[in-house]
């Protein structure tokens, strides 16, 4: 990240700074899919507790709401995954690795990381949702 240190000529430094500023966004983006997973997790546990422990909401309502939320979470993660796959450009270039320390390489690496995080987040959402279907109540 401190690639500015080994360059002395000004134009190159500015260029890198711009590239880095642009990259800061994709650095944020890699956190989106796990965040969706975390929110989904908290909502699942929270709503089920409100229904089964506090008996504030009927379990059927919770089940319907959480099923819809699960599908929404999966849709968002799928969209994030698709975007990061395009950023990675692996399907175009066929390159899985990013050994050069260029801005382009960093950009694609962040896409790669975001894609893998989307996959694990999708698996997390699916696993957390399974009891909704398989247990189907407060047992």
């Amino acid at each position, binding site marked *: 990240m401190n690639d500015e240190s080994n360059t002395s000529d000004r134009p190159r430094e500015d260029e890198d700074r711009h590239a880095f500023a642009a990259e800061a966004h994709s650095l944020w983006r890699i956190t989106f899919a796990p965040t969706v997973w975390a929110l989904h997790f908290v909502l699942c546990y929270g709503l089920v507790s409100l229904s089964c422990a506090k008996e504030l909401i009927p379990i059927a309502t919770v089940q319907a709401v959480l099923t819809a939320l699960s599908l929404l979470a999966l849709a968002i993660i799928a969209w994030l995954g698709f975007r990061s796959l395009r950023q990675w450009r692996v399907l175009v270039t066929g390159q*899985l690795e990013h050994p050069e320390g260029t801005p382009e390489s960093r950009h694609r690496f962040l896409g790669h990381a975001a894609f893998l995080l989307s996959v694990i987040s999708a*698996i997390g959402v*699916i*696993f957390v949702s*399974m*009891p909704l279907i*398989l*247990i189907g*109540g407060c*047992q």
Partner: protein
Amino acid sequence: MPRSKARAAARPKALSAALTLPLLAGCEGAQSALAPAGEDAAVLATLFWVMLSGAVVLFLAMNGLFFYLTRIRVQAQSETVARWLIVGGGIVLPFVVISALLVWGLSILPDHRQAGDGLRIRVTGEQWWWRVEYWPEGATEPVISANEIRLPAGQRTELILDSAHVIHSFWIPALGGKMDMFPGRETFLSLRPTQPGTYRGQCAEFCGASHAWMAFEAHVMAPEAFDDWLAAQAGPAQTALSDAARRGAGIFTREGCGACHTIRGTEHIGVVGPDLTRVGSRTTLGAGRLGVSLDAYRAWITHTGDLKPEVEMPAYDHLSEAEATDLAQYLRGLE
């Protein structure tokens, strides 16, 4: 194991076989999850064997692969092979296996709370014994017992579990999974034993000095026999006493045992310790600690704390041998 016969001369093999055989015998018995005697335990035993078989296959496959790549085909592998191994063996296979196990596990998870056929048993964990109440369908008051569970075979019984002081765990491995007991909170367990017999239960959560001595016997009975037993259990204690037992009853009163123990039909109505109305009909003494011989009763009365460290009951070691014997006769006769 035929291999021990084939190569009796190969000492390590013979030795390992000799060491394995007694271990296999440990799979049988009154307290084994691998010798299921009920529907619920059978499901868990199947789960165990499937997971064990899967683990053995994975173990052999992993080590076989390791052996193959380090001993048989030692040259460098192409990147494609390596990538397929990592993605297939490291991501896809574990995902599929774990998902399948999760689906199976979740599908059997609600079973421990299945509705029963009528009988409910409330069990409370004490230091270190079990307070037991039978609530047959429609009952307005329970039949009280302790340190023993009796269940009708072929029927599903609901157990409501609770604890008085600390966390315990109720577990009859041959009949089903275990369930923790929490002070101030009820948990549930539903069991459907299928084979009549005597099984052993054990507290499965460390609960203090005598945790290991907190056990009980679970008797699975034919439904008619169970109904007869429960009807007999409900009444007051028996009054036809031998001379020795009559003297023992006097000692029971004199020593103030009734402050902690109930014997229905007498003036003794203490609820600190186990109900002794039919203690003589139980098959263990001191919550699975001792057998039920006269000597066992005497030992329990006079050496309580030695047999069960930190137990609340004081040892009545000031009683003469004759008095202890009379008291033992009285209690043992309460069938």
